[in-house]
């Protein structure tokens, strides 16, 4: 009886099958919206996460063959041990030892991010990797050349076939695989998250720091992700060697403005600012307290700086430490796959 059923099913399956392979539809849960997070910006409905697609994206992320001469991978400058920021260097180094212009940010909660890069010039998570792949100071390879290489010199055609139903590697499927992997990286395992869920009792210093942070910093670093996603001039320079947001909008009123970053994992992602000029959180708080530089586009909230005592700075830093997500650092789903 069982054999009969099995045979009947096989016959039906065969009769239904088309010549073209269908993309996988297996249930694979790697991305979940934390209950205390807002709705994500990126809609995975248009790029459903599958085990094959996610693992393909993960492999691509860590594969140096995505750069000219197989020199660097995405993971070279976005290391899991640093919450997917670079290894504590101000500026990242791409092919041939070339140095980039801005500090590599940590990669997490990208599904909640509307615009990418320090100037917000990139408007969608799927097209985000094009800049580092093609930039001459980063991976320095033209998309068409990369697709050609992956198609002809690697094992990837079969893996793209398993993930997307076509062994012909397209820009679209390359970027969708990377979006499945990078978009699925969620950081919600910090002590701060535990505190919100009632599972962690902060220390006295952390509680004082939290109150100080709410009073002094949350105007820009507000909400569960500690950012209002705006662009602001936080008083670093009187003259701007890097126009920041102004280069994107072509509006001089935006010169010297940069993205307000999420402060999740901030203690793990030093150095700080768009050019990585501050190596420690102490230096950052000293800047806001005593180091604000006047300029035409300085944020009005910082005109007088944010005066803090040394004890207050220490307490705020104690709070910032609670934003570190050590679960993320050890999450094997996002780590470099074994070769």
């Amino acid at each position, binding site marked *: 009886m069982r054999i009969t059923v099995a045979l009947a*099913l096989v016959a039906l399956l065969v009769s239904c099958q088309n010549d073209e392979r269908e993309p996988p539809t297996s249930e694979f849960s790697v991305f979940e919206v934390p209950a205390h997070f807002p709705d994500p910006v990126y809609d995975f409905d248009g790029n459903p996460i599958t085990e094959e697609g996610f693992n393909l994206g993960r492999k691509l992320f860590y594969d140096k063959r995505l750069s000219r001469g197989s020199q660097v991978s995405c993971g070279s400058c976005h290391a899991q041990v640093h919450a997917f920021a670079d290894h504590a260097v101000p500026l990242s180094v791409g092919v041939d030892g070339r140095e980039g212009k801005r500090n590599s940010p940590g990669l997490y909660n990208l599904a909640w991010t509307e615009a990418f890069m320090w100037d917000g010039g990139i408007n*969608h998570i*799927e*097209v985000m990797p094009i*800049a580092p792949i*093609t930039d001459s100071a980063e991976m320095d390879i033209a998309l068409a050349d990369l697709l050609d290489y992956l198609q002809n010199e690697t094992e990837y055609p079969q893996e793209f076939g398993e993930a997307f139903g076509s062994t012909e590697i397209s*820009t*679209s499927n390359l970027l969708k695989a990377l979006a499945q992997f990078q978009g699925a990286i969620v950081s919600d395992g910090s002590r701060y998250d535990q505190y919100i869920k009632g599972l962690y009792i902060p220390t006295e210093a952390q509680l004082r720091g939290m109150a100080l942070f709410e009073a002094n910093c949350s105007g820009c670093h507000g909400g569960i992700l500690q950012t209002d996603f705006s662009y602001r001039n936080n008083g670093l320079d009187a003259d701007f060697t890097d126009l920041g947001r102004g280069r994107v909008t072509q509006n001089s009123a935006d010169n010297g403005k940069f993205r307000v970053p999420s402060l999740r994992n901030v203690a793990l992602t030093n150095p700080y600012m768009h050019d990585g000029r501050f190596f420690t959180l102490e230096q950052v708080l000293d800047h806001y307290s005593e180091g604000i530089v006047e300029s035409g586009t300085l944020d009005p909230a910082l005109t007088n700086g944010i005066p803090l005592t040394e004890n207050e700075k220490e307490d705020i830093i104690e709070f910032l430490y609670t934003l570190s997500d050590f679960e993320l650092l050890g999450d094997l789903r996002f780590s470099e796959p074994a070769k």
Partner: protein
Amino acid sequence: MTIKTIKLAAMAITIAFLSSCSDDDDKTDSNPAPEAKGNMFIKFQHVWGPAQADFNLNTALVHPGSGEELQFTKLRYYISNIQLQNANGDTWIEEESYHIVDAENMAGEEVQLNLSDVSSGSYTGISYMIGVDSLRNVSGVQEGALDPAENMFWSWNTGYIFIKAEGQSNASPNGSFTYHLGGFEEPFAANSSMFHDFQGATLEISPNDNPSVHLIVNPARFWHGGFSTEQTPMVHMPGEMASDLASNFAGSFVFDHIHN
């Protein structure tokens, strides 16, 4: 598991598969006879200046206004959102309507776009966009003509380069001109919505013919209104200059004739 439950399960699964298999048949059966469709071409004829002289890549041209000696090495632009209007006010809309016109592909002076599955009928006008609509500039990775590997896409300030015009100029400070024109946001949007009435002629689409709409494009118009490669050798980001140059170029597109 008893034999009975296995039987029931097998029946249920069988029914599920049968019904999923037969869905397509049902659809085919209930569909009306497919409407008649035809093929057509849009031919972009490139000419130079008011005299409508020959335009070719890698060929010396003198700009009629500025007198600058120019030589184009590249001219590529997006044509999107093509629609045909008939006399009743009905419209045929091309699906996934994104094309690149590349002067590299000129045969004679013309580059042609092939449109298939056009609904049969008599059409009296055509509308399209030079550039790419704002929606596709913000919707993630796209395919076909919109594939970023076409090199008509800015990676650092994401959005499509609607028009690329490059070449040499004797008057340019660096000996060349490079216009990468795009930008989908006001006030400097560089995409242009076009409409041409066929001026009494009709485009007759039927399954048996390959009619064509002939448009004339005049790249000398980039420098209309006092622009020159001496003053403006390079534009490579959205902004007022990109918008002005793109608008100048769009102003050169005119309807010439229908060939049925």
